């Protein structure tokens, strides 16, 4: 049981070790509510990219254009809000739709014209870089004065106005955490019951309860830490919602099955009635949409669109996905894994910053961690043969 799941647990253990290390090395500053809250906000725009990238890599492709595309779409959002004076409720869906369109353009290059994704998106990398520069050419950095928009990257969900009750803690966050815990417990119990109704094997009762307790403690701890500062940030909410939706799609729907089938063996998928081209369009379309989201998260966080926004995001996202266990051979990789991968990478940056470690050393450490994670992944996969 433990052996079989070592790959999945391995990542949690690694994350735990990294967090524990930084907590000790920074005398507890790392684990403080304020820092964790910050960390999550810093990570958001990479996390959503990593989730999209996971699917791209699963179907044996790559998307190098997402960095500057995020920057460019962020700039479009900024221009929309300022120069064009559009309302926020129009700008957000518009930019998301634009993201989908750009993704579909990449997909057309790949599926219709048969250009390798590396080349097609490398062209995108150049083109969107140019587009970003042109968009910010006249004004340079575009300051975004829109409060609501800037709240996406910096704001927190409102609290329940209850003076005196649980002072210093964010009550709505606690309440949501409680709901999440209850939901997890109930769905676990009902899924176990259904399995038993089918006469399937289920883990022993003791084991099951142990797992439940562990999950509840985890949810509780995270909620408590977050509630200690301003509570859940909007970024956290967005990342959680995106993760939940993508996790659901990939594990529970036919679309997810089709994506993993195409990644596992495109020829067999095609002959099983799955259109490989269609899946390529869907996956790149989704990547484009998440890129737009990432670009807006970043612009909102900086409260402005800059000429260099998005530089290197694609590489951070790819690294997060690999740390999270996707395989470039295709067909393997979970979006939840990539989320953890993104948290691991961001924890490293954040922790080393707190420790005052030089940026040059930071790059080397992050490179080493990437290699170690992938080596571990490959080794455990072999081991199971």
């Amino acid at each position, binding site marked *: 049981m433990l052996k079989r799941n070592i790959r999945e647990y391995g990542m949690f253990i690694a994350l735990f070790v990294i967090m524990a290390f930084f907590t000790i090395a920074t005398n507890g500053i790392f684990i403080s509510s304020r820092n964790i809250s910050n960390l999550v906000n810093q990570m958001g725009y990479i996390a959503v990219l990593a989730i999209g990238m996971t699917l791209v890599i699963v179907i044996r492709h790559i998307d190098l254009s997402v960095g500057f595309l995020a920057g460019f779409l962020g700039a479009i959002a900024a221009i929309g809000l300022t120069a064009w004076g559009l309302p926020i409720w129009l700008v957000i869906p518009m930019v998301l739709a634009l993201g989908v369109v750009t993704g579909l353009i990449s997909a057309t290059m790949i599926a219709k014209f048969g250009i390798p994704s590396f080349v097609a998106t490398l062209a995108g990398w150049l083109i969107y870089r140019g587009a970003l520069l042109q968009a910010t050419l006249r004004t340079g950095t575009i300051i975004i004065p829109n409060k609501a928009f800037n709240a996406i990257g910096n704001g927190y969900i409102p609290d329940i106005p209850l003076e005196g009750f649980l002072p210093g803690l964010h009550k709505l966050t606690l309440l949501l955490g409680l709901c999440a815990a209850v939901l997890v417990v109930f769905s676990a119990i009902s899924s176990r019951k*259904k*399995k038993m109704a*089918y006469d*399937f094997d289920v883990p022993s009762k003791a084991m099951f309860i142990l797992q439940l307790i562990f999950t509840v403690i985890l949810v509780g701890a995270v909620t408590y830490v977050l509630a200690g500062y301003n509570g859940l940030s909007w970024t956290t909410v967005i990342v959680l919602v995106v993760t939940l939706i993508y996790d659901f799609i990939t*594990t*529970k*729907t*036919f679309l997810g*099955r089709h994506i*993993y*089938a195409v990644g*596992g*063996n495109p*020829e*067999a*998928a*095609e*002959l*099983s*009635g*799955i*259109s490989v081209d269609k899946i390529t369009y869907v996956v790149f379309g989704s990547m484009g949409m998440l890129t737009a989201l990432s670009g807006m998260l970043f612009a909102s966080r900086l409260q402005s669109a800059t000429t260099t926004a998005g530089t290197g995001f694609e590489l951070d996202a790819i690294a997060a996905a690999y740390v999270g266990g996707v395989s470039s051979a295709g*067909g*393997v990789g979970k979006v939840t894994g990539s989320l953890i991968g993104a948290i691991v990478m961001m924890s490293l940056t954040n922790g080393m910053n707190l420790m005052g470690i030089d940026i040059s050393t930071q790059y080397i450490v992050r490179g080493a961690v990437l290699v170690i994670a992938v080596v571990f992944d490959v080794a455990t996969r072999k081991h*199971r*043969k």
Partner: protein
Amino acid sequence: MSVPILEMRHITKEFPGVKAVDDVSFTIESRQIHCLVGENGAGKSTLMKVLSGVHPFGSYEGEIFLDGELQKFKNTHDSERAGIAVIYQELALVPEMTVHENVFLGHELRKGLQVDINETIKQTIEILKKVRLDVNPATEIKDLGIGKQQLVEIAKALSRNARLLVLDEPTSALNETDSENLLDLLRELKQQGVSSILISHKLQEVISIADTVTVLRDGQSIITLDASKDEINRDVLIKNMVGRSIDNIYPEREKRELGEVIFEVRDWNAYDTNLGREILKDINIQVHKGEVVGITGLMGAGRTELALSLFGNAAGYNLRGEMILKGKQVRFSHPKKAIKAGLAYVTEDRKGDGLILIQDVKTNITLANLDRILRYGVINGNVEIKDARDYSDSLNIKTPSIEQKVVYLSGGNQQKVSLAKWLYVRPDIMILDEPTRGIDVGAKFEIFTIMNQLVKEGMSIIMISSELPEILSMTDRIYVISDGRLTGELEAKDADQESIMSLATS
């Protein structure tokens, strides 16, 4: 007696949940051909992977002796160096490279830093003579038929001075002539001091070539027969393989009235733009409800191409002609549409385009018909497990669980998963492309029984096969294809092997 060339002693190899090989011992004297037979999943391939170092020393129990010396292979390089060459069913040749490049791949002849091309070609010509392959060494592999590729593979082994050839189902993809050639070659090499281990489900072959035979069942060695002492015949082999005797290889077929014509192809032409030539010419075929139609012909005659062109044309040929399904003219632009309309296609190459090897048994079984496990658009994992178990049980798939990845199943059981996947679609017309390739006698019987059951329930089956006895016994009507053309149509009851062969080569 001399020291045996190979001795495997008390070999045991376990995987999580399976004891694939269980305390097997056998010996091969020099200048011998040893055959391994057994049902699908009996452990034959695994035993050979232990020998070749795929499963390295330390991952199994027991000892391997070559010429009386204990061997501890850590990888396939070690075993190669010791003179063992393994030829898998999926050939390990680079299609875009020439024959001589392939023969010396990995141990190129050098002159300084350069590859000595002249010496390479000279030596290749000599080796090709030894394997009696008459081709220009500069030919690219992809331009050779599978039978010739097989010979190149053996040439490659000989160029490394292999003394022991291991062939895992080498003839399963070969036609009769090519198989005969290959077996003759093995006999000849034996005289020259190269011994062989041959795995095969074609018992006739085994009987004709074996000096000794070891029968495996459930990982255990049941018996070793010596042709010089024991009688080796079909009955003895089957009895030891399955533990009981099987009188009939083919189940009885009930005589039935055929239904109306359900599927028809008229003047069907296909042009392959990659090859730049016509691969199917004026094919006319009819299939009745409840009928088993056989399509046969030599390897490369265009049978698989025909199936692909009918089943949604995934290969992208330019098609001409009419296809009529249940009285309506149809044309499928994608396999998806063909499936919707009631067709299923069990591919010939299950690893290449049939299964998703890195996924588990249940995911593969349900893949082509996810609608059956969707509830309100969401996959119901419990229904999936239940259905997958039902199908896996009814086809007798040997696997520790339906959560096992397909890549870890034996070849024959992979084939059954492939079949289960398409049965799960509940088609009206099922195209089976070489359905019994690499399948043991017992499983063949099971598959044939299932086929009989299916046609009785009203399904129609198009069975593509090179095995003439099986085509003759299992079908109602037979179409023979040669070089992309239909050269004959026979009632199965009036046909025999000779009449088919003469049509197939006309």
